[in-house]
């Protein structure tokens, strides 16, 4: 239930938008205090809400309120506004909105942007279109049903007279804003559902896209930082005597632990005229740490503990039927334990922002997923109102969940305050790797049975992992019912089901990592089904089909859609086809973040050499806003899946992270990427849902099942090659 979890925790703790339920953001709420008075003062024009402005010359500006981190949202959402507004895409400029409640919820995570904002964006555009049509009708003194907006102008349906949008802007701005504008029918879409090119590609290929690390403001200093190696530790002493000739050129600032979930872990910063000098000076400091209570954390030992916890009876969090009896009576019975390691997000742009703290203002330029959380956190840090913190949202050079937690911004603020100048703080790769909010390591144990009629009659699912809740509640001792939601809610026909949890006390900061708990749930469930099917001498796809087809629960739609993506992927990939010796096929399907994905993997195994030849992905995320961007999300999910399945794990020894850079945290490179990744979207008649995360959970299990098919070797612990 990580999508829900994310919203609950995030909002309960931080957001003013806490009352807004997903998908039901009141349009009026987004339009408060706007209308004629809010039209851009610099130039007259038409801006009835926060999302667009049409200038008297027709030039149109669209604002994206959600954060861009590569997922294409700053093209997809403005395109929805543009479509309903009937503006010419060629005349549109897209700007990123600063942190401001007028844009609605801006914190961008949980694959929620499309879920939450698609309809409000359409309404924002449709309201404008209706007002422009009304303005034209008034000008011509005809009933409004005789006019029609079309591609940046309003036409008279009878004689084809036209008025350009620019000509209508001023009059339209005088009119009342419709509260429930009529949305287009799908056949009238101009941009939605089309492979519109992303608005920022041109700037990227010439190096002009400005990321958080690229911000320069007058008087700005550059900073480097090193953090306390263990959560809960602190700086004991800093000896600056080794600085030598750099002593004159730098300022050394001790940064205290800031006791908020997204606050600094604590460390030492160095401020200089350039990053290089700051980094060199940092290396010359002799810092003594008090490592605190988690200094014995060892990830291998911890994973072994988690395995013990899930292989013994746990605490029941959900139950239906009588699992023990059904297991006892099963014709075929199977049990297996699955393990996964910690993961670091490792975006190519490490944590970076520029902050300028003054007595009377605070201005932030940040790569971030959570501008409104920055306002809350810096407000708390500086003792100011969140609204008094100005946050400019820069392009994020990758994020994957990490830049939702802006400890690095709070650190830049601390440094700016200390030196009395704007400070650009970019973490080194080593700090990024060692000071994360990691994806939980985990253990899961599943026991299940198939009865005489071939039904999966029992399923016991035990999980132990340090949950994200530990970030918000240090007394947390492990996952509960909420964290098991994505197991409980899989639409399988299993009459006797029990979910249990085992203890897992967090020894590091745990965070949302693209697809969150679904990574290990999707892995365990799909690999287990493959094992169970083979033990029962059944085809794994047939067994999955039966589990969905026979589903009699409360969410029949869910089972139907999961079955459909399974069938589509099997069809695309040619399930059951002959493959050469040493090759194998595997499949996996998973429901998460309100979307459905299935993947079929074709692999070749030669000893320890694993080569993925082809991946076929079937997706149901409802109506796809931009098929090209959505396809790219799936390609990226496969490639991230390759990394976590084969190579990457963050390891701890003596409380500290062992990994440091890409040599011992080897994210996927081009040579591990299959030649073919095919993506198909089905179920487009359904409501649009997110796709940033749902592609990730299915790759690893499909690969592991394919490896078994090719070699007879069953992997139950990820990553299979190991990291450091």
């Amino acid at each position, binding site marked *: 239930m990580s999508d829900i979890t994310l919203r609950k925790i995030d909002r309960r703790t931080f957001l003013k938008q806490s009352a807004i339920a997903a998908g039901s953001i009141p349009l009026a709420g987004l339009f408060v205090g706007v209308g004629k008075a809010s039209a851009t003062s610099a130039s007259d024009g038409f801006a009835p809400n926060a999302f667009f402005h049409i200038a008297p010359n027709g030039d149109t500006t669209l604002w994206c309120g959600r954060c861009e981190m590569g997922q294409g949202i700053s093209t997809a959402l403005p395109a929805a506004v543009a479509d309903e507004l009937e503006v010419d895409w060629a005349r549109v400029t897209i700007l990123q909105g600063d942190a401001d409640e007028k844009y609605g919820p801006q914190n961008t995570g949980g694959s929620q942007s499309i879920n939450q904002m698609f309809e409000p964006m359409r309404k924002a555009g449709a309201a404008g279109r209706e007002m422009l049509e009304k303005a034209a009708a008034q000008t011509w003194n005809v009933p409004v049903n005789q006019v029609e907006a079309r591609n940046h102008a309003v036409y008279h349906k009878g004689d084809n007279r036209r008025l350009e949008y620019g000509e209508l802007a001023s009059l339209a701005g005088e009119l009342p804003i419709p509260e429930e504008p009529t949305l287009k029918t799908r056949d009238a879409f101009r941009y939605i559902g089309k492979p519109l090119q992303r608005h920022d590609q041109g700037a990227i290929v010439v190096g002009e896209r400005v*990321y958080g690390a690229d911000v320069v403001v007058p008087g700005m200093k550059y900073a480097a930082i090193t953090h306390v190696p263990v959560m809960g530790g602190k700086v004991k002493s800093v000896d600056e005597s080794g600085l030598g000739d750099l002593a004159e050129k730098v300022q050394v600032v001790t940064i205290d632990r800031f006791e908020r979930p997204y606050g600094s872990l604590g460390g030492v910063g160095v401020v200089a005229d350039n990053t290089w000098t700051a980094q060199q000076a940092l290396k010359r400091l002799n810092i003594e740490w008090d490592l605190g209570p988690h200094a014995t954390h060892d990830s291998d030992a911890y994973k072994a503990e988690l395995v013990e916890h899930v292989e013994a009876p746990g605490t029941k969090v959900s139950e239906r039927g009588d699992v023990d009896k059904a297991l006892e009576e099963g014709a075929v019975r199977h049990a297996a334990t699955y393990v996964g390691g910690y993961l670091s997000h*490792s975006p190519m742009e490490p944590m970076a922002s520029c902050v300028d703290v003054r007595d009377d203002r605070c201005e932030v330029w940040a790569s971030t997923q959570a501008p409104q959380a920055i306002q809350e956190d810096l407000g708390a840090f500086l003792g100011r109102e969140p609204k008094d913190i100005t946050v400019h949202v820069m*392009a994020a050079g990758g994020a994957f969940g990490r830049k939702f937690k802006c400890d690095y911004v709070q650190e830049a603020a601390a440094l700016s305050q200390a030196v009395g100048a704007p400070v650009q703080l970019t973490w080194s790769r080593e700090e990024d790797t060692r000071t994360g909010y990691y994806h939980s390591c985990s253990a899961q144990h599943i026991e299940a049975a198939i009865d005489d009629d071939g039904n999966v009659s029992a399923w016991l699912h035990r999980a132990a992992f340090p949950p994200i809740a530990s970030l918000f509640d240090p007394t947390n001792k492990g996952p509960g019912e909420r964290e098991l939601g994505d197991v409980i809610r899989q639409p399988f026909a299993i009459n006797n089901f029990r979910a249990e949890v085992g203890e897992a006390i967090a020894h590091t900061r745990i965070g949302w990592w693209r697809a969150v708990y679904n990574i290990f749930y999707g892995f365990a469930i799909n690999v287990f089904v493959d094992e169970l099917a083979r033990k029962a001498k059944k085809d794994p796809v047939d067994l999955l089909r039966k589990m969905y087809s026979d589903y009699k629960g409360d969410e029949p739609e869910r089972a139907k859609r999961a079955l459909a993506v399974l069938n589509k992927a099997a069809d695309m990939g040619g399930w059951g086809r002959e493959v050469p010796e040493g090759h194998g096929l595997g499949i996996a399907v998973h429901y998460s973040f309100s979307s459905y994905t299935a993947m079929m993997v074709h692999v070749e195994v030669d000893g320890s050499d694993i080569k993925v030849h082809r991946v076929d992905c079937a997706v149901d995320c409802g109506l796809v806003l931009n098929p090209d961007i959505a396809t790219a999300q799936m390609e990226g999910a496969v490639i991230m899946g390759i990394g976590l399945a084969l190579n990457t794990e963050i390891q701890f020894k003596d409380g500290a992270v062992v990994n440091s*850079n890409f040599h011992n945290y080897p994210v996927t*490179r081009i040579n591990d990427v299959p030649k073919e990744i095919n993506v198909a979207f089905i179920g487009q008649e359904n409501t649009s849902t997110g796709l940033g995360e749902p592609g990730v959970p299915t790759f690893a299990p499909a690969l592991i099942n394919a490896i078994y098919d090719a070699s007879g070797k069953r992997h139950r612990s990820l990553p299979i090659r190991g990291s450091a």
Partner: protein
Amino acid sequence: MSNRLNVNGKSVTVEGDESMPLLWYLRDTLSMKGTKFGCGMGLCGACTVHLDGQAVRACLTPVSTAIGKSVTTIEGLSEDGTHPLQVAWQENNVPQCGYCQAGQIMSAADFLKKNPSPTAEEIDAAMVGNICRCGTYVRIRKAIADAAEQMGGDNE
């Protein structure tokens, strides 16, 4: 001995610490932000620039090494963003976050000069030093092949 170097056709004089990597000299001293920091160890390729036409990792290249030489960055690869690779990158919608792409394009540009008609395997081998965490590799391959064809390489 003059301590000048040429950056995208403009002559600049190096003052101060000549051991500073070219990456930070470009980014912090010259405020040219197109060249990106990714790892600082030559592992990711995000900082790739051309030094006298050869692709180098700017994070490992002291600015002293560049004195008397010509540096080309993403900002100077073409006058107006129309290098065949820049065009192919857009046509294939390669970038997701885009942060690594300057380095990818600069690596590919040097590679295509040396090998104008590469095979798929040669493209992979040439690009293995450039990491993209968003996972745009399938499109990078396609864009390089398209650009090679555009540039007149006899691509199979």
